């Protein structure tokens, strides 16, 4: 497939997304354009007040705690347990890592405290910490993204 066709398809997909269409057809010269939007069942939240203390996670895939992020470059380190997130071993200590820190596989990134137990979360690959996603002392749920790592 020539690059130009690919681009054209991507343009159409973008339009499809942008306008929530279900079908888009294009025929050059003779012009023929076709757009279509099927009425889909929309699942929406009920009209009750939801007061959230913990950030809900929209769609975290199942098991691995290191996953490719939306940028396709970075790895997301997610919490393997429910608990409280700490960036340092004690209030006075320095954070295990900062944004920009180069880490080795197995290096401690943070602690998630659960039931008075301090669980050390380790890097699963060598890389650079690009982003710390959670503030220290914040509660985190299972699968919640904690760090973005740029793998080396």
């Amino acid at each position: 497939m020539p690059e130009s066709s690919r681009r054209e398809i991507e343009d159409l997909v973008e339009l499809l997304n942008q306008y929530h269409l279900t079908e888009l057809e294009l025929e050059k010269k003779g012009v023929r354009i076709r757009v279509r939007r099927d009425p889909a069942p929309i699942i929406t939240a009920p009209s009750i007040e939801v007061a959230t203390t913990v950030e809900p996670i929209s769609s975290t895939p199942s098991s691995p705690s290191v996953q490719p992020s939306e940028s396709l470059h970075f790895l997301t380190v997610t919490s393997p347990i429910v608990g409280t997130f700490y960036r340092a071993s004690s209030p006075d200590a320095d954070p295990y890592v900062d944004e920009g820190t180069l880490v080795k596989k197995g290096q401690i990134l943070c602690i998630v405290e659960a039931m008075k137990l301090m669980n050390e979360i380790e890097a699963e690959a060598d890389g650079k910490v690009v982003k710390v996603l959670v503030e220290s002392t914040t509660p985190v749920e299972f699968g919640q993204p904690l760090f973005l790592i740029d793998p080396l």
Partner: protein
Amino acid sequence: MFKKILIANRGEIALRVIRACRELGIRTVAIHSEVDAQSLHVRYADEHVCVGPAEGGLSYRNIPNVLSAAEITGVDAIHPGYGFLAENAHFAEVCESIGITFIGPSSEHIALLSDKSQARAHMKKHGIPVLPGSDGEIEDPKACRSTAKKLGYPVIVKASAGGGGRGMRVVWHEEDLDQAVESAQLEASTAFGHGGVYLERFFEDPRHIEFQVMADHQGHVVHFQERDCSVQRRYQKVVEESPSPALDESTRRKMGQVAVKVMKSVKYRNAGTVEFLMDAKGQFYFMEVNTRIQVEHAVTEVVTGVDLIKEQIRVAAGHGLSYKQSDIQLVGHAIECRINAEDPVRMTPSPGVVTKFCVPGGPGIRVDTAMDTSGVVSPFYDSMIAKLIASGRDRSEALARMRRALDEFVIEGIQSNILLHRRILDHPDFQKGPVSTRFLDRLLTLQSV
């Protein structure tokens, strides 16, 4: 009263508890697995915490994660619903140890009553009529044979730690006994980690009658009359009703008194169910205590007008029972059909995407479901998608309402057991009532002939 409760469950029972909390003005925390992030119980709760991946063992049964969720959200109490951690003595114990109220009995109650053989011995000691059987677990094959002979065949081998029919064997002839005991022990050991089994006389056409009981921390015990759960398939209840068509007033009174005695003998507290087996002559025997709220609690709520979940919460918070025994009067008749997502022929779970879900309404109909107008039946969990409860002035009106409600129920995208319920409701034996626990198996056998 509690300020915030975590519901350690999913599905309709999670919604049921959230509803009770809302009516009491208590905030709620839902827990959920990753695949349940969009579930109704998550959307109805005030807060929600993801506790693990889809598999129940890693999420809803994951004690550290569930308790961490309770800690980070700062709840006062946990309602376990039924299933998952509801009858886990260890979980109840850890809750107690970290100062979070487990809404249910104490861990000791759960431990004592979940060992069927031990519970049997305890009740026998306290003068409760138990099924004729062995004294405790079977140790020696020879003693076992002589016990069985004394009981008279058929006998049933049951696992002390059993439930749901696992580790059970019916033995019709002496020559099959040894092998049945061995295989039951093996199955129990695999399924429950404890291979102990005991013997009981086997009744061929028994009725399953259970009494709903509630006890407060001040020692008051009240029962809410009986439910008849004889319509079962492989030890799974399918249809429940209250009152039972099998009981007369005097038996009902006697059984109620025994049920209260059972609970008082262990100084029980919170909601529990005393299950009895009743033979064709009306003789009844203690079977076991369920130390949780049950799926079928709704039929009792409908005929007594009591909100059992709210009462559970009040009692757990230390309040005395808000009902005396004399306040509990059965008004009318209620029947429940468990609506399962299942293949109507093979009777296996039928998970999938629900494309239309339209529940029946009108007089005498209650629906408890966590299904939205559309939704997903996950293959990871129980296949029950709704409880349909119909009530009326008497049994015949309740049955008529159930039939028309089953006709109204529209479920598309997945298969369900609605037609099976229609067959049960249409059957003359059921309409006449009462039936035995073998009714449904017979119905299904006949049909397949």
